[in-house]
Structures are given as C-alpha cells and as structure tokens.
C-alpha cells in the first residue's frame, strides 16, 4: 500500500499532485472466495476491512452494483453521534464512535473526522424532558452528553437564533461534544484502500442476480452479472436495495425503502462551527470543509426507489432552517438529491444470521447509517467470521420481530427516525 505521510504530501505538492497512484486494484472476480460481501458502500467495505484485519479472512470480494460509495455513503449528511436512548443502540453507536476516533490513523487515510459537537435543540416542554432523558441515559452509560441553556447553545453555535419571539423558540439544547462529521467519500475510499492492501478484491459494476444453494439448502455462491462466483459465506449489506437482493433468495424482511433527501447551499466562508439538529421543527445542518451548508430533509411517506423525493419535504426543512438561522435565508441552494433508505419498524438495524445457512444480513440502518459505519462493519465482520453475532449485535438479530423484543428508537432518536 502506498503510505501517506507528511513527506508524501510535500513531495506531491512539489510536483503539483500530478503523480497520484491508484489506491486499490480493480481485479476481475475469481471463481471462488471464502466470503462475499454484497454492497460496496461504507458498511460493506468496512466489513471486508475488519474481516481481513481482525479475523485474517483475506480471501474476500466486495461486489458492488455501481461504484463504491456511490449510494447512501455518498448521499448522506455525514453526521456522527452516539447519543441514542436505548441501551442496545448506545452500545452499538458508541462502539462506532470509538472506532471513528482512531480511524484516520488506523487507515492511514484522512477521513476528516471532526468532533465539532452535535447540538440537539429543544423547543417545548416535551422536548426538554425527552432530551434531558437522553442526557441522563447517555451519562449513565458513560457517553458524553450535556444540557445547555439557549445562551450556552448560542455560545457553541453563534448563528443560532434564540430570540423569544420565534414561532418555535429554542428553550434549551443537548450537546454531544464528541459528535461531529466526517468526509463520506474518504470513508469509503479509506476502507477500500486498506482492505485491498490486505488482499480483498473490490469488484464494481457487478450486480447480484441470484443465489446458488447446495443440496442441503445452504449458500454455495452467487450468480452475478459477471458470472457465477462460489462462496460458502455471503453477507448482504445492500441498504435500500436489501429487500430487492434478498427477494432473489426467497427472503422477505421487515423493511420498507423510502427516499431521504439532502441538499447543500453554495459554498461560503466558515460560518457554522458545529452540527445543529432539531427534531420538532425538522432541520439538521452543518458546514462542510468546502464551505457548503449541508442540510438534511425528511423521508417521503411512501415506498420508493426513485432516489429523489418530493420538493415539499425539502421546502419544509428549509423553512425551519430559515427560522433558526435567518441570515441563511438568502443563500442559494446548489444541489438537492435523494437516497433510498431501508427502514425497520423499530428504526433499529438488523444485523445477523438469516434462515438460510451461510447467508448473513446487515441492513435496516434507515436514516442514520453513516455514523455507524465502522461499528457496523466491525460487528458484522465478527458475525460473518464466527457464524454467530458479535455480543454488541445480539439484540439486533432478526428474531426480535417474532419475540417482540424491539429496540424502539422510533420516537426517541433524532430527526426522521
């Protein structure tokens, strides 16, 4: 692997960065692998990386229908936090946040992880109680979260309008200082590069068309658009298209796919130092290192794979943004897009085994999967390597929809959950 350092950066600067080298191979698929990952987004690539690194399983291929990081990994608003309410969720997202904190060093790749703090605003008595409950639950579990007055929130994020005359005035906020943002593309590229260096094959433009089964019914491989590939272990990490992929194995899951929108403004100088979210009036916003304000809207109300949402959904969020930050009202929006998110009934992911031996699934991350990328890959690699769930992933098994032991983050977590 081409290692990056201050020396390589200076050498690159001297020659105008004209000598860039490819960071991962683009091999044709072999006839067989020890394990196959379906889906080359952040979660799939992270799974392959941790399979190779932690479990020594290097005979692995990642199959991606399009290009790596081109789905939801390249479409989300890159917010990272672990201030969830339920104990199981806190375990999973805090596991991910701890991995984020060392990720750039570990991958030798700058994922631009910036712990600039995530502010969640309260606008009424119910919000105050709910967010304080989150703060206390988080602190009991060793996760940082603190309660701020409106003035303290404004000190953290000066553009915030805390005027008492607002239609939905800010009455307080919860702050997770360790939360923040990362550069989404760099996460996919960093994992791809590090996994490739350990022997993982990353195969783009390869769509899964069907599942091969042995006489006992277990997984024997995949039929793909590049021909059959044999493997005894297959992990499906296909986000919004999980239902489509698994329908080809005859499986139906408790998932529905919805378009989730985001938009960015024209780039401006640094004006916005943290991440701000509001459940009640539905807005979340941060500023990217390029200077664009990155704004997240909600999901449409109907199942769709169209990768674009209704304009009224985005307009609703922009109205809220303009109320909280009136100085942004004259900014022009540069781009608006949608990604397809797979939502479970309890708004918590499904990680684990399926009824088909050798077939594993990691899906249902809904509107909040990016923040979990390292943790998701880490626990799913364990699940694939050992054939049993990682201790952190045990509560997220698919059987919870039969036992009724749901992990209800629906009303408890952030915007759009």
């Amino acid at each position, binding site marked *: 692997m081409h290692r990056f350092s201050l020396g390589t950066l200076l050498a690159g600067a001297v020659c105008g960065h004209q000598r860039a080298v490819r960071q991962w191979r683009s091999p044709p698929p072999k006839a067989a692998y020890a394990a196959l990952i379906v889906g080359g987004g952040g979660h799939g690539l992270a799974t392959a990386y941790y399979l190779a690194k932690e479990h020594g399983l290097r005979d692995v291929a990642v199959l991606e229908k399009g290009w790596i990081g081109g789905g939801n990994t390249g479409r989300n608003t890159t917010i990272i936090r672990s201030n969830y309410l339920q104990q199981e969720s806190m375990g999973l997202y805090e596991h991910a946040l701890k991995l984020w904190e060392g990720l750039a060093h570990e991958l030798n790749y700058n994922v631009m992880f910036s712990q600039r703090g995530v502010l969640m605003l309260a606008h009424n008595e119910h919000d105050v109680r709910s967010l304080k409950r989150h703060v206390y639950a988080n602190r009991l579990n060793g996760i940082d979260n603190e309660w701020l007055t409106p003035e303290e929130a404004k000190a953290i994020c000066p553009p915030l309008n805390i005027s008492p005359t607002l239609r939905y005035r800010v009455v307080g906020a919860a702050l997770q200082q360790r939360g923040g943002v990362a550069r989404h593309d760099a996460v996919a590229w960093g994992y791809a590069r590090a996994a490739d260096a350990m022997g993982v094959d990353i195969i783009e433009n390869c769509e899964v068309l069907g599942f091969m089964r042995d006489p006992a019914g277990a997984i024997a491989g995949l039929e793909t658009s590049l021909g059959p590939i044999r493997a005894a272990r297959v992990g499906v990490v296909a986000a919004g298209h999980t239902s489509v992929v698994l329908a080809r194995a005859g499986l139906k899951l408790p998932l*529905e796919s919805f378009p989730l929108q985001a938009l960015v403004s024209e780039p401006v100088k640094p004006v916005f130092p943290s991440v701000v979210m509001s459940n009640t009036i539905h807005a979340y916003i941060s500023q990217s290192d390029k200077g664009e304000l990155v704004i997240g809207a909600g999901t449409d109300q109907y199942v769709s794979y169209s990768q674009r949402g209704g304009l009224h959904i985005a307009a609703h969020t922009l109205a809220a943004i303009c109320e909280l930050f009136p100085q942004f009202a004259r900014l022009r929006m540069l781009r608006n897009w949608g990604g397809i998110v797979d939502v479970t009934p309890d708004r918590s992911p499904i990680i684990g085994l399926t009824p088909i031996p050798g077939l594993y699934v990691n899906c249902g991350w809904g509107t909040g999967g990016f923040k979990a990328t390292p943790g998701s890959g880490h626990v799913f690699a364990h699940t694939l390597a050992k054939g049993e769930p990682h201790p952190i992933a045990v509560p997220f098994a698919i059987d919870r*929809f039969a036992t009724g032991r749901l992990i209800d983050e629906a009303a408890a977590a952030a915007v759009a959950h």
Partner: protein
Amino acid sequence: MLLIPCPYCGPRPEIEFRCGGEAHIARPKEPVTIGDVAWGDYLFVRTNPKGVHAERWVHTHGCRRWFNALRDTLSDRILATYAVGEHRPDRPR
C-alpha cells in the same frame, strides 16, 4: 410531490393525502394459534418491491375516504386506483 388521482375527487396534490402502506395485508383469523413468527410476519414483514406496489391511501384533507392504488416504486407513476376490498387489478400497461 405526487399528483394523486383520488377515485372520488379527481387528481389532487399529495399533501392532501396520507399513505397507509402496503395493501392487502389480511389480519390472521386465528392470532392465538398461528405462533409468534407468523404474527411477526403479519405485523412487520413487507414486500417492499422495486416495481409495482399495491398500497393504501386516505384523502385526509378531502373526502377522507380510503382507497387502494397501484404505483411503480421506481418511477413513482400511479398506474391505477381501486376501491378498498376489491382485488388487486391486473397490472396496466
């Protein structure tokens, strides 16, 4: 925003409607005896197709009546609407 042809009021903008999710999911006749897996399937498992989807809509800010629609989930084009209780019509062209 979708333009939804309400069978009772004609085409109206989507914000007048609420989507009620997948249609034709029948409540099991004997919930006590079917077991937890089948009950969980009834409550939670959905077809979630990339293609034609039969779904329920209610014209909340209009006639307030429920109806079913066939919609292509890739193009979001509504292919047909029909009354609650009717069988799913054959897929139109």
